[in-house]
């Protein structure tokens, strides 16, 4: 899978100046009586690759789901590129966002799911072109050309005319990556994208993601248990426990000399 340098120009987003792209302010999320995120604050700069690690149930996936608006925070606000994701301004007041406003801000965000979630009723090519054509209003030919480029990038050129059910898990996940990139998002959310794959299929998917991380300016938020991968692509690693960030820093530091006892325990358990 060769890195295609032409992709980097195309996915380049206008604001890669290290400015703040994602901002969580006092975000709290509860499921029943269980507080999953506890007044969480954090920011991600544009173009950065951030990996969220921590024991299961520590709220990592919840963060991605909040950003994708699959969940709503109980308290606090989330901003993406300066725009409120969860709220909109009515004069000076902040009110919960309507569906339309949310959809507008959300267009800048793409997500790859643990279970791929390809549309089984569409062939591979249409999985990738459907949203650019019908959401972004791209001409069909342009969307298909772009889809072919992306499917080439993920090494699936010969499968464009198949249904997802005819592909292996690893191939489906690579289609899902192409599908997310086709929307030219500023932010790509990766939610344990290799956890549902057979071990021998993991490497292919991670190679594609490494490629994308190294050749594009896309901002990545990544929840993973693949620590080597996290070390390879991350600019920052956030260690979560009980809905809080207990430690953060560049991967060299977190993985080699973590300050927090809890981080040491976690890493010794997974590495």
């Amino acid at each position, binding site marked *: 899978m060769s890195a295609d340098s032409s992709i980097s120009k195309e996915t380049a987003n206008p604001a890669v100046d290290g400015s703040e792209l994602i901002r969580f302010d006092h975000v709290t999320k509860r499921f029943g009586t269980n507080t999953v995120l506890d007044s969480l604050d954090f920011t991600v700069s544009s173009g950065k690759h951030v990996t969220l690690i921590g024991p299961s149930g520590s709220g990592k996936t919840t963060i991605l789901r909040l950003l*994708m*608006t*699959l969940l709503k925070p109980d308290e606090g606000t989330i901003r993406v590129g300066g725009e409120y994701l969860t709220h909109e301004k009515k004069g000076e007041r902040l009110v919960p966002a309507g*569906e339309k406003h949310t*959809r507008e801000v*959300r*267009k800048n*965000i*793409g*997500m790859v*799911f643990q*279970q791929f*979630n*390809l*549309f*089984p*009723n569409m*062939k591979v090519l249409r999985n990738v072109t*459907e*949203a650019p054509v*019908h*959401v972004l209003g791209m001409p069909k030919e342009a969307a298909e050309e772009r889809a072919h480029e992306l499917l080439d990038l993920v090494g699936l050129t010969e499968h464009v005319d*198949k*249904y*997802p*059910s*005819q*592909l*292996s*898990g*690893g*191939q*489906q996940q690579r289609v899902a990556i192409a*599908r*997310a990139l086709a*929307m030219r998002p500023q932010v790509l959310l990766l939610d344990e994208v290799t956890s*549902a*794959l*057979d071990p*021998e*299929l993991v490497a292919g998917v991670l190679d594609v993601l490494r490629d994308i991380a190294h050749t594009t300016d896309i901002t990545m938020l990544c929840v993973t248990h693949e620590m080597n991968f996290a070390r390879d692509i991350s600019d920052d690693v956030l260690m979560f426990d009980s809905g809080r960030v207990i430690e953060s820093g560049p991967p060299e530091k977190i993985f080699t000399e973590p300050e927090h006892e809890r981080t040491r325990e976690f890493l010794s358990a997974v590495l």
Partner: protein
Amino acid sequence: MSEISWGLWELLLQGVWITVQLTVYSAALAAVVAFVIGLARAHRLWIVRFLSGAYFEIFRGTSALILMFWIFFVLPIGFGWQLVPMWAATLALGLSYGAYGSEVVRGAVNAVAPAQREAGIALSFSPAQQLRKIILPQAWPEMVPPFNNLLIELLKGTALVSIMGVADIAFGASLVRNATGQSAPVYTIILVMYFILAFLLTRGMRVVERHAKAGIGKAPEKREGLRSKLSAGQVGDITRSGAAPAGGAGQ
């Protein structure tokens, strides 16, 4: 059966045509009602859910025959005009079978994995686009077999209209019986006629089902015919199981 003259046969065959028409018209109305009510019952606004739920309960809980009488005899009192029996029957059958059908639509839509809707949200499809492009195409293959059952119920239910003097199969049969004075041959004939119609419907719906499944990339199911049962007993041929994932097992 030699007592039944050609003229009487013609009466029965005309009845078949009326029954077919009635089935097609009321099935079309029922399908529209089923989708509208079935989708409305999962709507995010409670008032829409309430009204569609009320429709479902009322029409499921009333007899199609009484509804037919009501539309034919009671509506004119209020509105001052009367539907011809054929349309009164179509309306009554369509509205009540549509209520049953709405349950099929609702169930099939609910059965589509929630993750599919999430994928739709992640790609910023509008709720209407999610429904049209993602949810309904996947729910549709699940609806076909129960719709087939309802369709056959509906076909048999059309016999009710003979009471109102619509000249369907059952009406034709009673005329022929009066003319010949013989019940056994006539009712045996129409028994077979209904069976043939139902059988043809089922065959048609099988084609629809196979087509629907192919549309979501599912290989058509192995036919459960006698022949395949015999051969399955001999060899456990694993490689025939259709599109096996290229890269390995599991997924």
